[in-house]
């Protein structure tokens, strides 16, 4: 599939912002099944400096600095991305306990992909490790069951028992808070599922990206399409990392475009920054994803 993505963010500040630093995660990752053909970033006003490099998780990060007064900031990211089909993978992944044990320290050397997975199995600020999360996932992970089967069962459970309710949470809501409320948006669904997986010693990362706006005729319109989207990637050797979307209760296929991944939202927020001055601000975000 080939997509055109348009992600527009506008800050209207109440007064002049004298100085500002912004960190953007708005450029897609290239992978075996995803290729970015073209991307443009249109900024209004022009920053005093712009820098792009890969962050510690391999995402492309853009850093902006503004040192002249401005009362408005517009960031428009336009992407032309090709997404290939997911390789067929059955559920013959390793039993989840084996994976958990392989990620546990033994004093022996660790293969690169396992060490990489270790980065995503400890707690992070949005996804704390708690007994309640371990308990919540208990009936999904029967003894000896393949990891992927368990993760999918967990995805079904989260989707079933949590209410998708925009406005019920905000950008700073943690997994614990969303878990107690049993409601939230894609960010919260992802954080809860990540916390459940990590609390039982498995590795899971937070993926930020987009979902196509118009779903194939057979399906209902997908949830979360008019904004940036988020889902979960689970470490399932020997299959590798498998992406699951608890908001839409489905494996990630050609409808999802990957922008960045990290431990949680904090690592990959599309835009974060610090402004000096500016008073109260209004923020508007518009996303459209068109299939060609």
């Amino acid at each position, binding site marked *: 599939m080939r997509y055109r993505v348009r992600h527009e963010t506008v800050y209207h500040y109440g007064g002049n912002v004298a100085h500002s630093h912004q960190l953007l995660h708005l450029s897609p990752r290239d992978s075996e099944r995803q290729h970015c053909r073209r991307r443009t970033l249109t900024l209004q006003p022009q920053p005093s400096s712009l820098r792009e490099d890969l*962050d510690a998780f391999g995402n492309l990060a853009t850093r902006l600095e503004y040192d002249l007064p401005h009362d408005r900031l517009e960031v428009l990211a336009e992407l032309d991305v090709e997404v290939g089909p997911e390789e067929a993978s059955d559920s013959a992944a390793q039993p989840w306990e084996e994976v958990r044990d392989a990620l*546990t*320290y033994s004093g022996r050397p660790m293969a690169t992909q396992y060490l990489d997975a270790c980065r995503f199995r400890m707690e992070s600020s949005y996804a704390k490790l708690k007994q309640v999360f371990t308990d919540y996932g208990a009936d999904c992970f029967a003894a000896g069951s393949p990891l992927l089967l368990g993760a999918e069962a967990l995805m079904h459970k989260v989707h079933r028992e949590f209410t998708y309710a925009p406005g019920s949470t905000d950008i700073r809501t943690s997994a614990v808070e969303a878990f107690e409320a049993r409601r939230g948006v894609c960010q919260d669904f992802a954080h809860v599922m990540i916390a459940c997986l990590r609390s039982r010693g498995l590795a899971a990362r937070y993926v930020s990206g987009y979902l196509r706006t118009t779903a194939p005729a057979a399906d209902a319109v997908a949830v979360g399409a008019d*904004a940036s989207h988020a889902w979960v990637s689970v470490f399932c050797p020997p299959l590798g990392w498998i992406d699951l979307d608890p908001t839409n209760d489905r494996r990630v296929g050609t409808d999802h475009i990957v922008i960045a991944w990290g431990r949680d939202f904090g690592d990959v927020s599309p835009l974060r920054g610090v402004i000096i001055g500016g008073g109260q*601000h209004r923020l508007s*975000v518009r996303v459209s994803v068109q299939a060609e």
Partner: protein
Amino acid sequence: MAEARLETYLSDARRYDELLDNEGKVRPHWRPLIDALARDGADAVRRGVDLARRLIIENGVTYNVYADSQGRDRPWVLDPLPILITAAEWREIEAGVAQRARLFDALLEDIYGAQRLLADGSVPPQLPFGHPNFLWPCHGLKPVGGNWLHVYAVDISRSADGQWWALADRTQTPSGPGYALENRHIVSRVFPELLNDAGVRSLGAFFLALRDNLLSTAPEEETPLAVILTPGAFNETYFEHAYLARQLGLPLVEGHDLTVRGDTLFLKTLGGLRRVHAILRRLDDDFCDPVELRADSALGVPGLIGVVRAGRVVMANALGSGVLESAAWMGFMPAAAERLLGEKLQLPSVATWWCGEPPALHYVLENIDRLVIKPAYPNQNFQVVFGRDLAAAERDQLVKRLNARPHAYVAQERLAFSQAPVWRSTGGGGGGAQVHGFSARALGMRIYAIATPSGYRVMPGGLARIAADTADVVSMQRGGGSKDVWVLAPDRRSVDEANVAGASRRVAARHDDLPSSLAENLFWLGRYSERCEDKARLLRATLSVRANALLWPQALETCEHFGLPAFDDSNSLGLKADLQRLAWCAAQTRSQLSAENWRAISVLQREFQEAAHFKREPREILDTLLLSLAGLAGFAMDDMTQDDGWRLMMIGRRLERLQFLAELLHHRLQLGATPSQSELEWLLDIGDSTITYRTRYLASPRLSETIDLLAFDQSNPRALAFQWHEIEHYLVRVAASLGGAPDGTLDEAVANVEEMQLTAIDGDSGRAERARQSLAQSLNELGLAAGRLSDQLSLKHFSLIDVSIRSVVAA
């Protein structure tokens, strides 16, 4: 005699004794000290202990400023009897500590770089990846100059066999070296001969080396600038931040004093933006940059990581170095030493089991009664527990926690710390005889190392900490005390070490490196000091006319006009808020104030609080307060470096007095009516000019002469003219130093007042009344101009200070 006093000092077979050998004899290296104390007698020792306590109070050495809900600082606790370490023993400690510093530096390089030790199984990945101070944005960053660790500290204690063990490592922002230095200063006042005779190694060169190393990476063509970054006056060790700033001659700054432009870090100074080459930080890792680290931190510097990434600032210590602050690392240090240094670990860690390893967990569960259980990560909600202290239910609870999340817990062997003598005075109250003598307390020492071009250098001394009672907990938090550590020199020549190589290439601090916010707080310190004085004088003068039925209501009305709602129940006299603001400004400018000056301000606050509490006579309270405030004025003149910050403080004082007196005179003269004799006396009293008037005019006051003295007499330091001349003088000096023309905001209003004809204002004629009103008008304009000048100064010198800083996030 000494031996007699040792009777109260009890040996403990389970412990190593610093003072006594196995046969109960004083160890040879303690002998000269013990003999000298015996010669001087018990009274001398007691006097020394008292002097130490007094010096701590006088020097304002506190442990937690403002942290106490009572608003009281907790005084530092120092037992002036030192700990003695022989030269031979020190050589081993020194080598061990330097090696640990080297090892931790190499470990940081690996964790924030190739992560080889994680891949090969030497170190569990859970340790860095689960630690809140492992900062992913810093992965792959290389520090300019090559050192991750600039300041390192380790807590050591020794076991019964005399072996020293590392108990905890400090790799983020080790606290305490300033306290160690202050301990030495105090002990050298208390026991000057003892210190000299013992041949104790000095600490001075260590601090010089620290400063030189911070500045060493600055390019030759630039004036190097290093700053100390503090979270602010509310931090528990703020005393030390300000103390180190004074000792090292470095500006003490908060996050908002710094700004990142492009790849460069700047300090906002009175003279504009100055490049900063190095930061000695006392701010925790994740608070340092709200753009990439904790977004909710207003304490940091937005964009700082970008400067680090560009290799344009030395961070001491590197951001993220706190990841090594966990007992969990200890068990893996021997392997890491072999792997990274190819060396055997010289200073071993106390036996430690990280429960994330199944065999270790098994051992810990089997032996829990003999072990101390600690959290593996500092953000855990878990207090250190001694297994043997637990009741059965608590023990079950702990076992459950360990099984649920083993990787989050560490167990350590309990070490019976060595013991050392402290001086105890008991009894004495209620008619009982006072008993003095040595008493034994458990001992731990914190030892410091710093990076230098020739490797890690260890401070020849340290911060010894003693238990509050006979328990094995040595912590200032838990009420323990501290001691100076005397490292005995091998020979006399080694006492004062030669200065470090390449020492003090250039002078560190320049006058125009004064942070803008510091200058602003000095300006307001000046204004509030004077404001308190003005109000106190007004109140005191008013109290003394209470019997005058005509004047009293007018005087009260004037007090209200100046925001002094007379004499309310709380007895705070309406001055409380201004005194609090004065204290706040003083706390913010502490690095510029001498210990005596700071003490005077603390004493003033305390006196006022106590006076209000005991409901003393207002007149008495005001007399005391005015005396203390006069002391502050003296410190301002004679006890401060006269740089631009000081000049702004003096402008603040003069400007406040100008504004107050102009407003006071305007307020009375605008009424038109001729002021009465007693009212003129009252005005002279407020203006502190009664005596001057009497010596000059030898008659009862007349209006024109009173105004002349209070407004135009340049030789009267209370007069308006004196204020505006002084202000002009300081403005010219500030402009010469910082560039630009002197501020002319006051000029027109001053010229108008100077034109006034005073002879016309006496008498009851309509003409005289108009003349008084016209003078009142000019004085009013002068007061308003003073207000505008204050705004102008803020705009010109303090405008770099950011009003509001906020984090924004969009999904």
